C-alpha cells in the first residue's frame, strides 16, 4: 500500500469492473429487457397481436364471466392493461360434466408439468413439498390445500378484447422468459453454479460501485457535466454521467440482486433450522415457526421413523450432496403432503365413502413406493434412472390428485347463477371508487352457504410490500352491495418485509407503466455504464499499446466487440427467428435459443478475425439493419391489411418504435466511427 488510498481504489475499480465487465453487460441487457418480459412473450406470439382494448371490452369481459361462472366455482377475469391486450380468464373447480375446455386445460397442464419435469426432475416434488413445513393441524392443512389449489390452477384462456373471440395460443416460444432466465441463471449451466457465477459478478459490481464513488472526487460538482470529446476524458464523462444520475438505482439493483441470491450464496443459517428457503418463508408467514416445526418432525417420526433418520443424515451431509438431499427430503414430504390431504378429508365428515378409502389405500401404496425409492436414492444418489422414476411418480400423483379434485365438486352449485345487471352495477360502483384503475374481477361461489361474492381488484399496486395481492372490493353478488374493502396484509416479520420489498424493487413488480419505463431507462444507463467502462479501459491504454502491443489489450478489444455488438445482434436474431419459423415446428423454442447463441458466436468469430475498427463498423451497421428489419418483417407476416398496422394495441407500436430507435442509434454510432476512421486516413 505504498500508493495512496484513492490510487488503490482506482486499481480495484478498474479490475473488479473489467474481469466481470462482459458478463455484467450481458446481465444488464437481459435484465433490462426483462422489465418487459411479459410484453416480449406477448410480442413473440403473433396470434395475440390483433386484440385491442375498446369500449366494448368490459362488456365482453362481463359476458364471458357470466358464461364461465355457470360452470365453475371460481372465475377470475383480468382485463387488458398496459402490459397485455387480452382478456384472460381463469376458472377453478369446473364441474366434470360440461367441459371440453376443462379437459383441454388439463391436457395443457399435464404438458406443462411434463415440460417442467424435463427441465427439473424435482420440480413437482418441490411444489408439493413447499407448503408442508410448519403446519400441523387440520386447519392449516386446509389452508395448504387451498394454496396448492392456487398453485396448480389451470392455465388461463385468452379472449380478444375487441371481438370477444377465443384466441388460441398456438406459438410455443422461449419469449421474454429466456432472456429473464439468462439474466440470473445463464443458459444450460447447472443452476447452482450459474447462480454462483452471477452472484460473484454482482458482488464485484457492488465493489466497483463503492470504489467508483470513492475515486470520483466531485460527484455533485460534475453531476451535469458532459464533454463529448474523443479522448479518455470524454469517455469518462459518458461513463460517469449515467452512473451518477442513476446511482441510487445501481446500488438498489446490485444490493437487491445479492439479496435475491441469499438462498444460494449464504444458505447456512436457514439450512440449520429449516429444510429450504421456502419452508422458512412459510413458517415466518404463518406466524411462528419453530415449535410447529418440531411438532411436525415428531409426527413424521411416529409415522415413518426411517424417513427422519434419513433426513437427519442428509442434513449432516455436505453441500455437495444437496441434490440427493433434495430428492430424499422431498419424497418424504411428498408422502407427508398426501397424508395431509387425507387428514383434511377425514375432518370433512360428509364425504367418508368408499372412494376415500380407495384413495387412502392408493396413497399408502404410493407412500411405500416413495419410501423404497428414497432408500434406493440414498444408496445410488447419482442414478439418473431413479431420479426419473421419482419424478414420474410425482407426476402420476399430481394427476391423481387433480382427478380426485374434479370429482369432489358438488353438482348443487349449478343453482348459483346470478344476473348480468348486478355484475354491471358492481363494476360501475367500483369504477366510482377507483376510476380507471380496475385490474380485474373474480366471481367466487360458496357452495356451503350458497352465496356468491364478486371481488374487484385494483390495477396498480399501492405499496412496495406484498404486491402479490392487490387491494380489492368485495361485493355480494345478489344484492350488489359492497361488503368490505380489503387491503392485502403485510407479514409481521421485518426480515420478510425487507427482503420482499427489495425483491419487488428489483423485479419492478409494483410498477405501473411510468415507473417501469423509468426503470427501463435506468437499466439502459446500466448498459451504457458497463459498455463505456469496458471501452474506457481500452482508451486509456491505447497510447501505451501503440508503442508496445500486448495480448491482453488485443483480447479485451475483441471481447468488447463480440460481447456488446454480439449480444444486440443475437437479440435481434432471436426476434427475427421467432417470426420466421412456422408455429408447428417441433421444439420451436430451442431453435430460437440456438439461433440466439449461434448469432452471438458468429459475432465473436467475426470480431477476432477482422481488424478491430472495421469489425466495430461492420457489426454496428449489421445490427442497425437487423433492428430496422424486425418491424418490417412483423408488419408483413402478422397483418393482412395496411390499416391494421396502425390500428393495433399501443404495446406493439412501442415495440416497433424501440426497434427503430435502436437501429438509428447503431447507425449514428457507426457513422461517427466511419468519419473518425476517414479523418485518420487523411492525417
Amino acid at each position, binding site marked *: 500500500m505504498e500508493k495512496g488510498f484513492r490510487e488503490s481504489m482506482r486499481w480495484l475499480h478498474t479490475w473488479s469492473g473489467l474481469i466481470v465487465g462482459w458478463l455484467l453487460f450481458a446481465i444488464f441487457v437481459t435484465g433490462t429487457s426483462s422489465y418487459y418480459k411479459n410484453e416480449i412473450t406477448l410480442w413473440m406470439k403473433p396470434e395475440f397481436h390483433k386484440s385491442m382494448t375498446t369500449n366494448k371490452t368490459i362488456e365482453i369481459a362481463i359476458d364471458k364471466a357470466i358464461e364461465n361462472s355457470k360452470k365453475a366455482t371460481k372465475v377470475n377475469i383480468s382485463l387488458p392493461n398496459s402490459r397485455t391486450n387480452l382478456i384472460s380468464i381463469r376458472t377453478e373447480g369446473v364441474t366434470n360434466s360440461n367441459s371440453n375446455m376443462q379437459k383441454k386445460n388439463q391436457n395443457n397442464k399435464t404438458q406443462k408439468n411434463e415440460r417442467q419435469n424435463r427441465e427439473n426432475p424435482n420440480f413437482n416434488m418441490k411444489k408439493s413439498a413447499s407448503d408442508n413445513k410448519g403446519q400441523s393441524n387440520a386447519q392449516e392443512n386446509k389452508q395448504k390445500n387451498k394454496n396448492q389449489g392456487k398453485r396448480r390452477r389451470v392455465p388461463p384462456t385468452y379472449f380478444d378484447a375487441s371481438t370477444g373471440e377465443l384466441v388460441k395460443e398456438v406459438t410455443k416460444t422461449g419469449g421474454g422468459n429466456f432472456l429473464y432466465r439468462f439474466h440470473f441463471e445463464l443458459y444450460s449451466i447447472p443452476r447452482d453454479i450459474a447462480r454462483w457465477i452471477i452472484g460473484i459478478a454482482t458482488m464485484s459490481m457492488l465493489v466497483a460501485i463503492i470504489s467508483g464513488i470513492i475515486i470520483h472526487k466531485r460527484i455533485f*460538482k460534475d*453531476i*451535469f*457535466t*458532459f*464533454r*463529448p470529446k474523443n479522448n479518455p476524458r470524454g469517455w469518462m464523462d459518458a461513463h460517469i*454521467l*449515467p452512473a*451518477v*444520475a*442513476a446511482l*441510487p*438505482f445501481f446500488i438498489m439493483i446490485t444490493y437487491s440482486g445479492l439479496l435475491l441470491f441469499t438462498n444460494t450464496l449464504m444458505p447456512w443459517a436457514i439450512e440449520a433450522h429449516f429444510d429450504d428457503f421456502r419452508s422458512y418463508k412459510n413458517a415466518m408467514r404463518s406466524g411462528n415457526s419453530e415449535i410447529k416445526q418440531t411438532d411436525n418432525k415428531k409426527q413424521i417420526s411416529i409415522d415413518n421413523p426411517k424417513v427422519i433418520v434419513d433426513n437427519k443424515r442428509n442434513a449432516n451431509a455436505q453441500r455437495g450432496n444437496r441434490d440427493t438431499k433434495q430428492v430424499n427430503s422431498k419424497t418424504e414430504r411428498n408422502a407427508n403432503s398426501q397424508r395431509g390431504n387425507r387428514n383434511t378429508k377425514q375432518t370433512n365428515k360428509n364425504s367418508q365413502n368408499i372412494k376415500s378409502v380407495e384413495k387412502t389405500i392408493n396413497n399408502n401404496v404410493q407412500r411405500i413406493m416413495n419410501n423404497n425409492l428414497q432408500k434406493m436414492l440414498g444408496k445410488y444418489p447419482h442414478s439418473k434412472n431413479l431420479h426419473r422414476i421419482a419424478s414420474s411418480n410425482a407426476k402420476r400423483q399430481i394427476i391423481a390428485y387433480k382427478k380426485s379434485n374434479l370429482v369432489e365438486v358438488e353438482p348443487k352449485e349449478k343453482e348459483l347463477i346470478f344476473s348480468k345487471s348486478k355484475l354491471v352495477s358492481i363494476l360501475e360502483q367500483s369504477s366510482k371508487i377507483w376510476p380507471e384503475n380496475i385490474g380485474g374481477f373474480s366471481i367466487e361461489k360458496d357452495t356451503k352457504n350458497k352465496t356468491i361474492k364478486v371481488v374487484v381488484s385494483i390495477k396498480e*399496486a*399501492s*405499496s*412496495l*410490500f406484498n404486491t402479490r395481492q392487490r387491494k380489492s372490493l368485495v361485493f355480494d353478488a345478489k344484492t350488489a352491495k359492497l361488503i368490505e374493502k380489503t387491503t392485502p396484509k403485510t407479514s409481521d416479520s421485518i426480515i420478510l418485509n425487507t427482503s420482499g*420489498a427489495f425483491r419487488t*424493487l428489483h423485479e419492478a413488480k*409494483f410498477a405501473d407503466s*411510468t*415507473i417501469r419505463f*423509468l*426503470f427501463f*431507462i*435506468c437499466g439502459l*444507463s446500466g448498459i451504457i455504464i458497463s459498455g463505456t467502462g469496458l471501452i474506457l479501459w481500452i482508451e486509456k491504454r491505447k497510447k501505451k499499446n501503440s508503442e508496445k502491443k500486448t495480448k491482453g489489450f488485443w483480447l479485451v478489444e475483441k471481447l468488447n466487440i463480440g460481447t456488446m455488438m454480439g449480444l444486440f445482434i443475437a437479440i435481434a436474431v432471436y426476434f427475427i427467428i421467432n417470426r420466421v419459423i412456422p408455429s408447428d415446428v417441433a421444439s420451436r423454442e430451442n431453435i430460437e435459443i440456438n439461433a440466439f447463441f449461434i448469432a452471438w458466436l458468429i459475432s465473436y468469430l467475426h470480431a477476432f478475425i477482422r481488424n478491430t475498427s472495421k469489425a466495430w463498423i461492420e457489426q454496428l451497421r449489421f445490427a442497425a439493419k437487423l433492428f430496422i428489419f424486425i418491424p418490417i418483417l412483423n408488419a408483413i407476416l402478422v397483418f393482412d391489411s395496411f390499416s391494421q398496422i396502425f390500428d393495433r394495441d399501443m404495446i406493439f407500436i412501442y415495440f416497433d418504435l424501440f426497434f427503430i430507435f435502436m437501429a438509428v442509434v447503431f447507425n449514428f454510432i457507426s457513422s461517427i466511427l466511419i468519419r473518425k476512421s476517414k479523418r485518420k486516413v487523411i492525417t
Partner: protein
Amino acid sequence: MTIDMYFIYLGLVLLSLTLDKHYRKVVNENINKYIKRLFGIFGTLILIISLIITIKSSGLSLGLTYWVGMLVPTIVFIALVFTYKPKIIVILSVLLLLITMFL
C-alpha cells in the same frame, strides 16, 4: 405526475446554475454570491416540495421510488442541454412549464 416531474426539473436546473461553469455558459458572466445562494435555497426547496407531492400522491414507499426514478432522466437531460445548447435552458424551462400546465 407531470407537475412533480417539472418541479424536479426546475429544482435541478436551479441547483445546476449555482455551479460556476454552467452559469457562465448561460449568462456569460461569473456568478454573484447572492444569486448563488438564492438559487441553491430555491432549488433545494423546490426539490423537497416535489418529493412531498410525489409521496402525497402515491404513498411513502412508491413515492420515494418514483422520485428517485424521475431524477435519472432529468439529470441526463439537463446535462445534455448544458453540453449542446446551454442558452436555451431558460426558454426551455418556461416552455416546459406551459406544457405541464396544459397537460
